[in-house]
């Protein structure tokens, strides 16, 4: 029998929720341990074994100089590096700082800002090192994570669809909230993975699985605007957990420009 792959889990700037999804996979956890050797997982065990690792799961974004260096060492130690969750994959909610003034923010949050050394941006892991696979979600879907781990152990392709949330809504029989209620729902430009939960509970998708392939935000946002939704409402919708995902970032920045120019026209 071939050697079990050695697995490591690393945390960067994040809330730990995605790592917890692995621990939450209670029904599957023992079977996973039969398939992979968990060599480094600080959230689960203080027995932290050194690399090299076959698979590294990376949670969190890069927000400090130290982390920008540490991720390079993780990459060098790992054969296959996979980002888990919106922070690692797109920069997370903390990437809102990319549009702010970092010194002002640090000054207003910390009583002694001089002790804080941080970057002005929160960036995705892929901006720093080569990423072999990105698992989306805030948090990730642990069924998808388990499928990927087993796929890696078996040497087959994982089954992680990249289509929009709409397909899942239609499987469930959920009525489209954009069309029937005029709700600005990001489902048509958001990747599947959650099972289309929010629209089934009468609210729009807020894009926690990040952009789908393709994500035609330009067309969707222009439709939202024609429904009368204002920039002030749409920018925060696009700027949440996946604010810095390229498709969402571009759309929110276009909106800000459009919003400014239309205000210019009114005055």
């Amino acid at each position: 029998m071939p050697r079990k792959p050695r697995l490591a889990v690393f945390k960067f700037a994040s809330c730990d929720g995605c790592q917890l999804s692995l621990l939450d996979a209670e029904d599957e956890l023992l079977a996973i341990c039969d398939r992979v050797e968990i060599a480094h997982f600080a959230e689960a065990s203080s027995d932290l074994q050194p690399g090299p690792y076959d698979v590294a799961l990376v949670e969190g974004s890069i927000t400090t100089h130290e982390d920008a260096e540490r991720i390079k060492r993780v990459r060098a130690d790992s054969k296959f590096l996979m980002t888990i969750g919106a922070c690692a994959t797109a920069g997370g909610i903390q990437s809102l700082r990319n549009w702010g003034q970092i010194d002002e923010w640090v000054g207003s949050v910390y009583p002694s800002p001089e002790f804080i050394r941080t970057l002005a941006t929160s960036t995705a892991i892929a901006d720093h090192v080569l990423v072999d696979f990105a698992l989306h979600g805030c948090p990730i879907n642990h069924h998808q994570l388990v499928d990927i781990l087993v796929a890696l152990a078996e040497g087959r392709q994982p089954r992680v669809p990249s289509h929009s949330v709409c397909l899942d809504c239609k499987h469930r029989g959920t009525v489209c909230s954009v069309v029937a209620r005029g709700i600005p729902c990001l489902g048509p430009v958001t990747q599947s993975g959650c099972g289309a939960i929010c629209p089934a509970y009468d609210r729009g998708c807020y894009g926690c699985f990040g952009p789908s392939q393709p994500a035609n935000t330009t067309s969707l946002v222009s439709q939202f605007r024609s429904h009368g939704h204002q920039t002030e409402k749409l920018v925060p919708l696009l700027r949440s957990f996946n604010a810095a995902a390229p498709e969402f970032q571009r759309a929110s920045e276009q909106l800000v420009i459009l919003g400014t120019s239309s205000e210019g026209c009114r005055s």
Partner: protein
Amino acid sequence: METPISPLFIPKPHLQLLLDELRRRKYSVVGPTIDQDAIVYGDIHSVEQLPQGWTDEQAPGHYRLKRREDESWFGYVVGPHSWKKYLFPPKTTLLSAEKTESGWQFIPRSADTTKFALLGVRACELAAMRIQDQVFLDGPYQDPLYRERREQLFIIAVNCTQAASTCFCTSMKTGPRCEKGFDLALTEIDSGFLCEVGSERGREVLDAFISSARRASEGSSNDANSTNENVTSLPILDATPEQLRSAETARQQAVDQITKHMETSDLPGLLLSNLDHPRWKEVGERCLSCTNCTMVCPTCFCSSVTEVRDLNMDRVERERTWDSCFNPDFSYLGGSLVRNDTASRYRQWLTHKLDSWHAQFGTSGCVGCGRCITWCPVGIDITEEVAAIREGTLP
């Protein structure tokens, strides 16, 4: 007893007795009901669940449930659901296999015994069912689940008495009059329904229903204190000439309200001879590739089949789910995506639906129900796209 050939008049409250008769015959009755701010198809036990007094307002990318001025029971057009979900379910397990000491044991899907009675099927939807019959039943490979459900299906059609701005069944020659493919067909007028019989099975159910209605009316006239509101003493008789005229007027109203048109004289042919038309790129910029049009389409039949097995590799299930040519992964062939941009996916859908469908199945794949227009989140209108391609075509 013999059912008369001419349409019968069924007083409104009696429709409940028809539902009861179907349920007595072990049918699961499904029909229009209000859910999630829309008229969808779901289980119907009582006529109270029908969208009495409600209608739908439709336009490209727009649907709103609206109160009617009258109390019509079928005074709407078509909604986000289509009947295909009952014959071709969104998710099905086709087969499973279990690991045993003597190797893999294959477990075929057990025969499906669900008997559906569909209430409120429109003419365009009957046409869509005929098209899906060709896809799933004609030719060398039949779909067993579709066949089992289709053979047992009981269809109560309802003639449209109004049209939405997105309807174009008259262009596709599929409606709005229900002409064939039903067991019973109703036309709603003020006080009740005119009922036509379309099959032996329909006649049988109608006869049984008439007997039970007669018993109910005798029962209610014997018991003057009866409080059962569903029971009426009105008899079921042949429709009067006046009722026939009212029904004809009501049906004509649907025809008159249809404003959308799709020219079909050069279909098939037009689209396949314009594969490099600049309109494909232009619509590709508006299209979200979200799959909504194909999911709501009553004829789209694409699916994906995946083998899903448990972690210990002891059991595998072969699952079939609705899929779409707008899902980029759906064109994954030989290690890459064959249709890697939205324009090529939109072109694939439209050329298949309106053009190559003819070569494949002998008909158009479009029935003019307008769902793809209404339920497109950005309101792309199939009829406008075809017109734009025709306009830009060099003679």
